[in-house]
């Protein structure tokens, strides 16, 4: 199994917070320029956040072409409404809130489409293993491991209510801070922490997930 280096998840270690502050102040400069219609600034913001947004969307819809299209839509919508952003420091969480809404719209449309489709056409992507095309680029073993991983993630997330699932995913898979999550979801930090705590309680009970992750770490 692929060995990984793991960084500790301290809530606010001094070096990490200093790095975050630098990144935020840098992003603020680009956001201000982008608001003024600077195309270079827009491209810079795309380059900085594209991967994060694509990943965030993919985790939720598990389809590469759809995730690519939605990522494009999210950035288009973001730049169209950028003048509405009051606090430039909140650009990342604001972008994530747009992404969350677009994912919700995607599922709403899909639900509507599936209503008119036959049951054989109606396939749910949730819990689906990412694209089979990956099998060619990576080994078969790696594919099996990934499949197992997404299966475990599916089991874990299925046990959580919607908001708990969203908070848990944003924190530990999208790597957002608690403050960014509270801004993206428009909930207070205390509520986010409570959801996170409950999500972690469920995570703790998933022994097979722990075994899997321990194997990944070792």
């Amino acid at each position, binding site marked *: 199994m692929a060995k990984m280096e793991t960084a500790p998840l301290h809530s606010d270690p001094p070096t990490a917070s200093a790095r975050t502050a630098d990144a935020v102040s840098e992003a603020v400069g680009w956001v201000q320029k982008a608001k003024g219609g600077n195309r270079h600034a827009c491209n810079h913001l795309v380059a900085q956040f594209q991967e994060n947004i694509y990943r965030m969307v993919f985790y939720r819809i598990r389809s590469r072409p759809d995730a690519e299209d939605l990522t494009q839509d999210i950035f288009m919508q973001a730049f169209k409404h950028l003048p509405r952003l009051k606090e430039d420091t909140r650009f990342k969480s604001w972008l994530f809130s747009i992404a969350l809404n677009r994912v919700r719209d995607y599922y709403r449309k899909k639900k509507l489409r599936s209503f008119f489709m036959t049951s054989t056409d109606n396939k749910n992507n949730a819990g689906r293993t990412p694209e089979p095309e990956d099998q060619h680029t990576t080994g078969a073993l790696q594919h099996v491991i990934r499949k197992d991983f997404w299966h475990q993630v599916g089991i874990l997330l299925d046990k959580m209510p919607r908001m708990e699932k969203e908070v848990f995913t944003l924190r530990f898979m999208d790597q957002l801070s608690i403050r960014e999550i509270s801004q993206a979801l428009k909930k207070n930090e205390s509520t986010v*922490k409570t959801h996170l705590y409950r999500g972690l309680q469920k995570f703790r009970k998933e022994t097979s997930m722990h075994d899997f992750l321990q194997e990944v770490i070792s």
Partner: protein
Amino acid sequence: MNTHQEAHLNKDQLLWALVDNARLPDASQAHLEKCSLCRSQKQRLENELSALGKFAAQSIPKPQKQVHLPPTISPSRKRHRLYWQTAMGTAVAALLLISVIWWPGMGLRMSGTKPPVAAWSQTDDETFMAQIRTLIDNDLPQVYLDISEGLDSEESEDFIDFVVPSLGPDVMSYDSANRRSLS
């Protein structure tokens, strides 16, 4: 030793230490700083969660399309679209309002049997007067009319005479009899 073990963070406290250290009691916070066992348990959980995020990021296909920014959307076109959307919305709302107001009115007119006063014709007047005349001729309620229809004309006279005898000259009235007895 025993007291030290009791002071260890329980599972829930360990989770709170991950989410928000400030929510732990002061004693637990102080214990966590000193106790290597509790810190290692917390670290183990942190490592697992970190591995979860990293493995997830590695386990997705790379995007084949990059985000492409087209020339900016002109505000005028946006405003134009907004204008049409508003106009269409207003039109639909107006149609709905008209249909809501119109249909109950139509329903009332269809179900109502009373014509307006202007449409009251002369024939209606005559019908109405005929009904009044019938009522004058037969002013008894229908129940009594049904009873009286069952009696033969000759029999009925005898029956009425029996019930209410006619007053002849030889029959003394109650009043005159009384007056005579008093005088």
